[in-house]
């Protein structure tokens, strides 16, 4: 099983990458970790004539804290995010998500920007970054741009990125003190894509009630989705079992899953409700300062 023939370039600079993308237009694709693009090329679902490897752009890799944000270079591998103490301590929701992406081998090569650009509806990192309110920095022949996750995501396997637009950096705001987050994924077997997943980031107010809350759902729509009705029910409220049940039903109703080999529409709606309740519980405990390990289905 081989990809169709292509010409291969491995430029030393980002300018070099943009120049090649501008020159070859639709016929060119960039290669990051290759963990999604190479399988697509082998199955001939993608057959770029020109493949432009980002491997030498090591400036685009690495994790650092900048004021109240964590900056993650586009080419940062999943494994580096998993091993980062900064991510573990400041962004537990993202850490939960990255540790359940595929398996060790895929995490050793796959990159954060590659995941976002590939836009698999069942991917784990888009819902995580949506819940965290991340912004995406890009460069193209017409200059730099910053996109919110909502602006980046368009459809299944489709983003708003232009043909010569390259993701360079992902900026994740560090949640304030008293905030807690969790990402839970339900998978059929270890290493598979999600049947459904949930990311929750919430902040406790002075009275210990839920303050602001963001809920993102994965694998139950063409892109990651916010559970806005559930958020409205829970925000600025004391969390009770009854309220959580109500929010879970709201999320089950507002998600938009399709039926496939991983499950029926009804099953996925049900799962979203269950995952929502579990994720809110973990987020609340973490917000109160407890160290909680997430257990995935």
């Amino acid at each position, binding site marked *: 099983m081989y990809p169709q023939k292509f010409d291969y370039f491995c430029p030393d600079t980002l300018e070099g990458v943009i120049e090649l993308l501008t020159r070859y237009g639709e016929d060119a694709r960039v290669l990051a970790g290759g963990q999604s693009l*190479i399988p697509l090329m082998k199955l001939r679902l993608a057959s770029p004539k020109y493949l432009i490897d980002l491997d030498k752009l090591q400036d685009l890799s690495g994790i650092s804290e900048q004021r109240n944000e964590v900056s993650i270079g586009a080419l940062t591998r999943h494994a580096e995010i998993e091993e980062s103490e900064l991510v573990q301590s400041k962004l537990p929701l993202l850490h939960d998500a990255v540790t359940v992406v595929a398996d*060790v*081998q895929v995490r050793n090569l796959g990159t954060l920007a590659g995941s976002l650009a590939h836009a698999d509806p069942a991917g784990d990192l888009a819902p995580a970054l949506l819940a965290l309110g991340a912004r995406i920095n890009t460069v193209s022949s017409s200059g730099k741009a910053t996109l919110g996750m909502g602006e980046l995501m368009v459809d299944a396997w489709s983003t708003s990125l232009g043909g010569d637009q390259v993701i360079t950096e992902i900026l994740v705001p560090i949640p304030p003190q008293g905030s807690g987050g969790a990402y839970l994924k339900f998978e059929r077997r270890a290493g598979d894509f999600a049947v459904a997943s949930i990311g929750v980031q919430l902040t406790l107010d002075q009275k210990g009630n839920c303050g602001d809350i963001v809920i993102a759902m994965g694998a139950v729509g063409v892109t990651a989705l916010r559970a806005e009705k559930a958020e409205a029910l829970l925000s600025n409220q004391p969390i009770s079992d009854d309220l959580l049940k109500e929010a879970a039903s709201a999320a089950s109703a507002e998600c938009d899953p399709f039926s496939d080999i991983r499950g029926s529409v009804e099953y996925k709606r049900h799962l979203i409700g269950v995952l929502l309740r579990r994720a809110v519980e973990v987020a609340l405990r973490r917000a109160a300062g407890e160290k909680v390990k997430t257990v995935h289905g």
Partner: protein
Amino acid sequence: MKQLIQVKINGRIYREEVEPRMLLSFFLREQVGLTGTHVGCVVGECGACSVLLEGRLVKSCLVLAVRTDQKKITTVEGLAREGTLHPIQEAFVEHYALQCGFCTSGMVLAGHSLLTRNPDAGEEEIRQKLAGNLCMCTGYTQIVKAVGSAAKAYKK
């Protein structure tokens, strides 16, 4: 158009011409002649083709050989020293951790990679970190035992 690459495989330098679409798994087996790396699914699902690239476990069917220019690769053939099996290989023999042997080179390297990073890995972590490697003979219990028992050899 073929491109010249220089790769260090198991400590030896190879200079080879490859077509850009050549996958590392086939490059190793057919061009370099190292057939210890097995090819199962070719789509990144089974882990049989696992090798170490710059010390990290990867599936060689998901890597283009041209990308490994100037890089270091370890295959299962690189573990034994002068005819003496590596402790992780000994552990697989001792625990009968292979049946048909098809998944074995990938399993051995996955175990080796895990223990190199964390010689204190317990059963749960071993199971998690080996999840990318499938054994069609389903001999997982013995494989997990073998990796666990090899751990002592990795502690300084």
